[in-house]
């Protein structure tokens, strides 16, 4: 595979790269899962609201 020359790429210690790759994927999953948990809590809160109102809202 070929690549265009990109002079701005600094040549850094390659052995460090894996740290960044792992962090990237870890952060991605952390954020997605955290947001999913937030969604579930929102849903539960809404459901609780519906249940409490359904009890008193109708006679």
């Amino acid at each position, binding site marked *: 595979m*070929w690549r265009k020359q*990109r002079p*701005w790429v600094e040549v850094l210690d390659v052995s460090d790269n894996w740290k*960044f790759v792992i962090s990237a994927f870890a952060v*991605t999953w952390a954020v997605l899962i955290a947001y999913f948990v937030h969604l579930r809590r929102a*849903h539960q809160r*809404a459901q609780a609201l*519906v249940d409490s109102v359904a009890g008193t809202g109708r*006679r």
Partner: protein
Amino acid sequence: MTNAAITTATPMARATRLSLFGWFAFVFLIASQAIAIAISPPDRDMGDLQKIMYVHVPAAWMAMLSPLAVLFFGIRYLWKRREEDDLLAASSAEVATTFAGLTLVLGMIWGRPTWGVWWTWDPRLTSTLVLFLILAGYLALRAFVDEREQRAQWSAAVGVLGAINVPIVYMSVRWWRTIHQIQSSPSTVDPAYVIGLRLNAFAFLFVMIYFIRRRYLAALLERSAEHVAEAAALGGGVGRE
């Protein structure tokens, strides 16, 4: 929007379908990431750092796509004044904020070893940052406005203007950097990586749609509860005067 439509049988079926879709999206994402990592060879310059592309780029695409949803639902709300559109817009905005934030963090993680710094005023990264701030403003507006109709109309106004501003910001930042003669980052993707990228892009898309639906359903539930409470408060029970 009647209460009956919300509190009868359909939500059950809807919720189950949604959960199935959620599971599908989750599995698809794992598979896409695994496949992409497995089949992609190391880049000549970046080495294995290239793999970050499989999360950063799809996240960025979703961060650009979800504001379009905010724009669409915002315009539809201003046109038809239906509560559902306001809730859909708000849900899209919340999801958009998540993806925008994720894009920024991943951009920094990719940038540090590639460019040597945590941040450059790169047009795409910068306009994502401005987008994030616009969305933060949108959410703050919703938090500080209590009156429902006011909140819906103002959110739509802010969302529409905010969405059309994003490409304008991108253009002006790019021009800004060109004037000051700063190199741009590459935008071409080596053909060897395209399949992995496309797979992950779709995976992220499914996740985004799932998130928005889920958020929307919760908002609908909440709204229906409020409607019922209001009706009761106005004396809608049997045997009341």
